[in-house]
């Protein structure tokens, strides 16, 4: 339902530009359906659905259109409405195509008051920064199509999303450090996930400083936003596939899969009563 509502919303924003309220209503229907689904998931799992990559994808799917709608209302623009709807729909589609095995368990290290604020703030940051990059690419594509140079105003809205996303990213990083100190005794251990979190943060900090000095170079700023988003994706998904992933204590999905495989292997080898 969320997927359908967001696809219809993006279509309606294009078809009825003078009646954005139609798209807004459809967008809200999508937000409510995905929000409701996540509420049911939270209740049925008996823990916050924030542990696995699939679960965080649901949060992302919810946060992007929500943030898109709220910021759109705040600044009275629907420029990001279509990208927000399409991104939300894309992440719902990914989750439907690759559903997660629902697991109710939560490792002791994750049973912390920091768990929910840390992940939710990160998801909001990812949503805002993701929208900023998509908007930058969108506007750049439009400029290329119209055979003109990217104008400074074209990147204004994308920049606003960074102004929202970067502080959230900062909070997420620091909440993580406070939590790590409680759980493992070290606020920073250069774990691969931490390193990538620092890289993402650094990439957007660099963007902010470059933008502060070179606001009149929109193409440079848009490029940095796109690079920043690539690093962000590396931190969220990519790090699980890197050689360093084995050294990370943050890849809970992989740990649980390995634990299930190990359990089965043990039972196959130590199998004295399999004929019962």
């Amino acid at each position: 339902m969320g997927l359908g509502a967001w696809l219809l919303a993006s279509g309606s924003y294009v078809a009825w530009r003078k009646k954005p309220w139609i798209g807004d209503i459809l967008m809200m229907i999508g937000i409510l359906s995905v929000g409701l689904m996540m509420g049911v998931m939270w209740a049925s799992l008996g823990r916050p659905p924030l542990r696995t990559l699939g679960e965080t994808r649901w949060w992302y799917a919810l946060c992007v259109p929500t943030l898109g709608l709220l910021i759109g209302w705040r600044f009275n623009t629907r420029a990001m409405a279509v990208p927000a709807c399409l991104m939300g729909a894309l992440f719902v589609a990914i989750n439907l195509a690759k559903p997660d095995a629902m697991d109710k368990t939560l490792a002791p290290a994750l049973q912390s008051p920091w768990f929910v604020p840390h992940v939710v703030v990160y998801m909001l940051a990812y949503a805002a920064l993701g929208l900023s990059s998509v908007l930058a690419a969108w506007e750049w594509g439009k400029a290329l199509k119209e055979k003109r140079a990217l104008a400074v105003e074209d990147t204004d809205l994308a920049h606003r999303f960074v102004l929202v996303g970067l502080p959230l990213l900062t909070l997420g990083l620091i909440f993580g450090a406070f939590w790590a100190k409680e759980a493992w005794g070290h606020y920073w251990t250069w774990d691969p996930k931490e390193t990538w979190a620092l890289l993402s943060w650094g990439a957007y900090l660099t963007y902010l400083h470059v933008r502060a000095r070179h606001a009149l170079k929109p193409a440079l700023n848009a490029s940095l936003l796109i690079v920043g988003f690539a690093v962000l994706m590396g931190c969220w998904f990519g790090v699980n596939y890197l050689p360093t992933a084995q050294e990370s204590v943050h890849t809970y999905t992989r740990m649980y899969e390995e634990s299930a495989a190990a359990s089965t292997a043990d039972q196959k080898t130590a199998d004295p009563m399999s004929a019962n």
Partner: protein
Amino acid sequence: MIRTLKPSHEEKPKQSQASDAVQKGFWEGKLGYAHSWLVVMTTLCMGTVLHLVSGPAPSNPLVLGVFGLPLAAAAVFVRLKRHSETAQWLAGIPLAVVSTAVALALALFGGVLPSSFWNSIGLPSLWASWPFLMVSLVVGTNLSAAVAKRAWPMTRQNALFLMSHLGLLITMAGGALSSVFIERCRIAIFPDVALNKAQTERGEDVELPFSLRLKEFTMENFPPTLSVAHSADDIKSGSHYAERGMKEKIRGLDLEVLQHIPKAVYDGKTFKEMPWKTAAPASLVRVSRDGMKIAEGWVTSGSVDVPATLLPVTEGEVVVMNAPKPKRFHSLVELTEGKETRELDVEVNSPARVGEWQVYQISYDEELGAASQYSVLELIRDRGVPVVFFGMFLVVLAACWHLWEGVGVKK
């Protein structure tokens, strides 16, 4: 060379300025990105040479003191010569962008290449290498200069700038303090004896000012789940807990738990409830396909006293019970300090504090699980933490302020 941003007309006649600009040397013109690249790359090369000559950076107060000098010097210099070109550059964005970019590029290597790679080139890790530390030093120097530049006058804009930049600088300084002065050691504690000797990572003994004895180790598990497996690599796990009455469809098979014993032992014929710490969960499972029963039997994930049991369903297809995942492990510890004895509760996410030491639950005998006869604790004394947390607190305040402005500023 220190020059002022606005040279007086008396010093240079107006008409000669254009030709002067052409004739100016590299360091005499306006300082910017080219100069930043040169300085940062030179520092990187110096770090590399230092690494080749002396190996990884030693973690000692002398190095910390030497690293503090450029930061302090930059701050003093910028305050004294605030309007000079050099001060502007030292505290400016080009140096910030270039030094951060190079530090991040190095961090990228650290985030991609595993520790085995760094070990193979004689480094415990990238983070303790001279090149990384030297580039970080440039980042710190730039930060220090920027903070000094904006420290006065205290306008609203400067206050926000200071909160974020000074917060970051303090966090970095605290991190450096931590890396030098942190004391970490581990101790395995047992029920019968009070121990006061812990070991560092390098295997050195550390005598603690108190002794610790394990009074009780408790472990709780989540109920197990069931899986249908073709091989160790081809498993489809269910999501429902194996509890009496549980029904779940996995790989086209309908599984129903007819009976579940959370702590069971095998008596040679069947499974019976036994409240031993070494007992294992066991479920009597009925397997059906399209309403037709095809197998029924006990499955258990096993323990040291109970052999693991799986239920064959079809050729090459078995129902297994996944090992229960730990929900909580907790050590009740008796601490004796002088003549005083008290109890400590230690568990993950809830460390205990003993003076300056923080005590963390780290491990236990994983083979015995709940029946573990010992508990492994980590003791940490990190005097840099208050500094780091103060810096982080400032950054959090600044982030909230930025967020407020980011949302609040109208287009």
